[in-house]
């Protein structure tokens, strides 16, 4: 049905295997480019539980994450979003089809195995077998292998659902005030801490660095929220002043270095074939956050302290990214530090991944740009003119001559003869100089013979071309036709002869007998008349045809 060039990842961290994703009836097949690779994959469409995919605008590559009912997820990195969307649409369609089919056999699906009678099971299995094997989707072996695998998995089936993140933004954590004092309180849960760490690697890094060597966890968070508070007051001047005093506090206020680095890396990975034109028209680029602060008030631009401001868009994006990434660590502990470290580890790994795939990435980019060339992104195509390299024709021909010299011609024996040959040539000239031309120059018989043979060739050539005017019309007809015509002509002559003979016969007899004779003769005459008529019509047709034929022949020969 459809094939796509994809990269298959068993998990997010997986570097991926390049291969071809095929969507066949009822199943997805992944065939790696490298035949030795063992990451061959087969997913039955009805087994697909959900599909996740990266959004087109995000900085991530076009990933399609399919998770099946067993809880395994398969990530396919497509070359572009188009492919991915196409694939996704097809899968959705296939899924819908499966769902339609499902109601037909609700018992089979909904009831558990033990509730089914053995006969039912067998029937169902047979049907499956029929469906797959006989339609040649699977071979016999594959079918049973899959069955075996499924049976094995059945026993350990246990949903391992990932816990998602709240969609509330970290910056949305509003402090609660008691109303009397100036004191503000932030309520911190491990969930929030995780989110903060995930969204702000700089904070995480700072936590790892400072806690507990420099300060307690409590101090850290107090400082963090103080910085956050300063942000929310939009008092950049105060923020700047405090940052100057307290370098730990400054860490939180400064733009996140680690994030920026990651962003840079991602930018590098952006598909260069992306058409940027739409963004340009949107006219957002020159406006800083459209001038809207995160609490909806208009921003007053204070350029001198710009570095202490964070943009709403940045925050939003970061948050979205973290939500999408999901909670990909298994550390459930309440220990903040271990959470931070685990997160840092994950990042480290993916970063290392990025490093190693750099080369591959580069290659991919190059290939992509080759495959999907866009005119406006191309380097100018006008190649420099290469003038003919024949500068001096003499040189050129001499070099060509030189090539030949190297070719053995097996004419070595000639060399010895050359001088003899020159000698004989000169002798010949001397001979003719002293004796004059041979007299007689040419024997009359030879001359006659030559002339005769030449004339012969001329005349035969003429006849082949058929331009000889003396040639009659008959001669130009094919031989068989000519014979026929000649034959018919003879016949006609004979017929007219007999016609006149009959007439003569009529004349010769006496008047009283003439009537009787004419009665006798009439049928014969009638027959002859008919023959003549036929002959005339035939001749007309024939001449018309041959005239046409000869005209065509003439055209052909020109």
């Amino acid at each position: 049905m459809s094939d796509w060039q994809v990269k298959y990842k068993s998990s997010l961290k997986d570097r991926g295997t390049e291969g071809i994703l095929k969507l066949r009836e009822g199943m997805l097949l992944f065939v790696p480019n490298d035949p030795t690779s063992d990451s061959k994959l087969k997913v039955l469409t009805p087994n697909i539980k959900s599909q996740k995919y990266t959004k087109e605008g995000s900085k991530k590559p076009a990933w399609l994450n399919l998770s099946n009912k067993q809880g395994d997820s398969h990530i396919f990195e497509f070359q572009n979003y188009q492919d991915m969307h196409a694939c996704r649409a097809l899968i959705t369609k296939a899924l819908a089809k499966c769902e339609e089919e499902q109601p037909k056999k609700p018992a089979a699906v909904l009831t558990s195995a033990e509730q089914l009678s053995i006969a039912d099971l067998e029937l169902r299995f047979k049907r499956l077998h029929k469906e797959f094997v006989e339609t040649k989707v699977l071979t016999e072996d594959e079918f049973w292998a899959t069955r075996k695998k499924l049976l094995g998995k059945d026993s350990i089936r246990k949903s391992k659902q990932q816990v998602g993140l709240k969609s509330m933004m970290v910056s949305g954590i509003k402090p609660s005030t008691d109303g009397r004092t100036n004191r503000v309180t932030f309520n911190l849960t491990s969930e929030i801490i995780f989110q903060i760490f995930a969204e702000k690697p700089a904070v995480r890094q700072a936590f790892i660095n400072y806690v507990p060597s420099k300060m307690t966890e409590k101090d850290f968070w107090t400082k963090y929220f103080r910085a956050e508070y300063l942000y929310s007051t939009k008092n950049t001047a105060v923020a700047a002043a405090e940052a100057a005093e307290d370098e730990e506090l400054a860490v939180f206020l400064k733009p996140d270095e680690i994030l920026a680095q990651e962003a840079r890396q991602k930018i590098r990975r952006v598909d260069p074939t992306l058409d940027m034109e739409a963004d340009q028209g949107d006219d957002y680029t020159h406006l800083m956050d459209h001038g809207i602060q995160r609490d909806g008030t208009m921003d007053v631009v204070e350029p001198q302290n710009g570095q202490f401001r964070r943009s709403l868009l940045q925050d939003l994006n970061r948050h979205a990214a973290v939500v999408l990434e999901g909670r990909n660590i298994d550390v459930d502990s309440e220990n903040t530090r271990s959470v931070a470290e685990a997160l840092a580890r994950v990042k480290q790994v993916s970063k290392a991944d990025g490093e190693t795939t750099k080369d591959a990435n580069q290659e991919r980019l190059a290939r992509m740009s080759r495959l999907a060339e866009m005119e406006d992104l191309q380097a100018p195509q006008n190649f420099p003119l290469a003038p003919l390299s024949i500068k001096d024709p003499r040189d050129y021909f001499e070099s060509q001559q030189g090539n030949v010299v190297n070719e053995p011609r097996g004419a070595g024996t000639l060399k010895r003869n050359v001088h003899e040959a020159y000698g004989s040539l000169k002798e010949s000239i001397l001979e003719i100089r002293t004796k004059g031309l041979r007299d007689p120059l040419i024997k009359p018989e030879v001359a006659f013979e030559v002339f005769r043979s030449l004339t012969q060739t001329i005349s035969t050539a003429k006849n082949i071309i058929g331009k000889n005017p003396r040639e009659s019309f008959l001669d130009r007809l094919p031989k068989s036709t000519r014979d026929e015509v000649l034959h018919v002509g003879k016949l006609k002559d004979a017929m007219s002869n007999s016609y006149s003979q009959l007439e003569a016969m009529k004349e010769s007899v006496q008047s009283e007998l003439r009537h009787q004779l004419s009665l006798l003769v009439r049928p014969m005459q009638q027959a002859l008349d008919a023959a003549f008529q036929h002959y005339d019509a035939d001749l007309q047709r024939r001449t018309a045809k041959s005239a046409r034929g000869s005209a065509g022949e003439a055209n052909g020969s020109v």
Partner: protein
Amino acid sequence: MPQVKIIAKNFMDMVASLTAIKLDKLYNNVFICEAILRSLPPLAKKYVLQLLFIDDPVPCTRIEEWVLPDGLSKHRVAIDRLIQLRIFTETVDRREGTCFSLNPTFQNNLQKHIISGGVLPREPMNSSNGIKLPSLQELETYALQQWECFLLQLINSGQGEKLTGISSSMMKVFQRGLLSQRDRDGPRLTESGFQFLLMDTNAQLWYIIREYISNAEERDVDPADLISFLLELSFHVTGEAYNLNTLTDVQRTTLKDLADLGLVKLQQGRKDSWFIPTKLATNLSVSLADSSVRKEGYVMMETNFRMYAYSTSKLQCEILRLFARIEYQLPNLIACAVTKESLYNAFDNGITSDQIITFLQQNSHPRCADRVPSIPENVTDQIRLWESDLKRIEMTQAHFYDEFPSKDVFEGACNFARQWGGLLWEDSKRMRLVVKSEVHNQMREYLHTQGN
């Protein structure tokens, strides 16, 4: 130039009209064979070459086989000419039909010529003997000068001072046909005379030579000898000196005439005298062929009927004077005007408008010749109109009859005149009629019988 061809053919006709014995005698001379070969139409040349080394008769069909349908008429002309000149001998073979073979004498000579190469008719004199030869250029100017001199004298022998040594009787011979003797104002150029002037030098030369040859018998000279000598002369090398001693007496006297025509230059040394052939002589065999050498034109005609001729030649000036009024003459330019009077003069002399126009077209300056038409249309039209003006009235000598006794006699006379085709005009009311003079005698006799 169709006229040229007529003249050249006339000459060949003359050769062809020689008796068989004389022709065979002619063919004894290698150079005549060669010259005749050159004079043949291209196809005939090819036939001669093809059969040159073949002794047996060759069927005509086999020769014809080579000719494309378009060339059949040319083939017939070529064969006719070859038979006329007795180069081809026709035999009829029972099997092959008409066969041709080359005249053996002709064939032998031509074979010899081709094998031995262009052997010169006679050895040129050794140039070391203190002979000062003129350069080729000098020789050419000499030849042209002589020739123009001769032509001038030919045209207006009346007033022209005697420049050449040609006897007046000989001159008369040349002028025969070209000039017409009129009672009142001396000789005038005839139509053919004007045609003659229009021809290129070689054709003119051949015309004169033809006259010279046809006149030969009156001078007790064998025309065949003369032809062979002239043709031989054309194979001499231009600019080389040849001793007169090698010639016969007849040839020597001929040579003197030829020197007057500019064909040869005679020079006298201390011991012996010699002649130097000019280009005119060596070109003799060229003009025999159909190929004509075109000269560069010199006339420019303007729409205002003025004509400029870039020429220094007195002869050309004379030619122009035939139909134009010469206004003034610069060293290399003749300015003239074509007027009604000058043209009437020309028409009076029997020159037609077409002749004048073709002359102008053929001799128009290269710059003008590129244009179409080379002569302005208003000029050509006007020349034709003036000519037709003259042709509006036709004079017929006639006799006038009147005073018929009765209507019957008058009508009888009219019928008689009509029968003889001489009735020009009749007036039945007054009974008068006009009859051509030719019929006058018969008319008179008829009227006499009627009167009786």
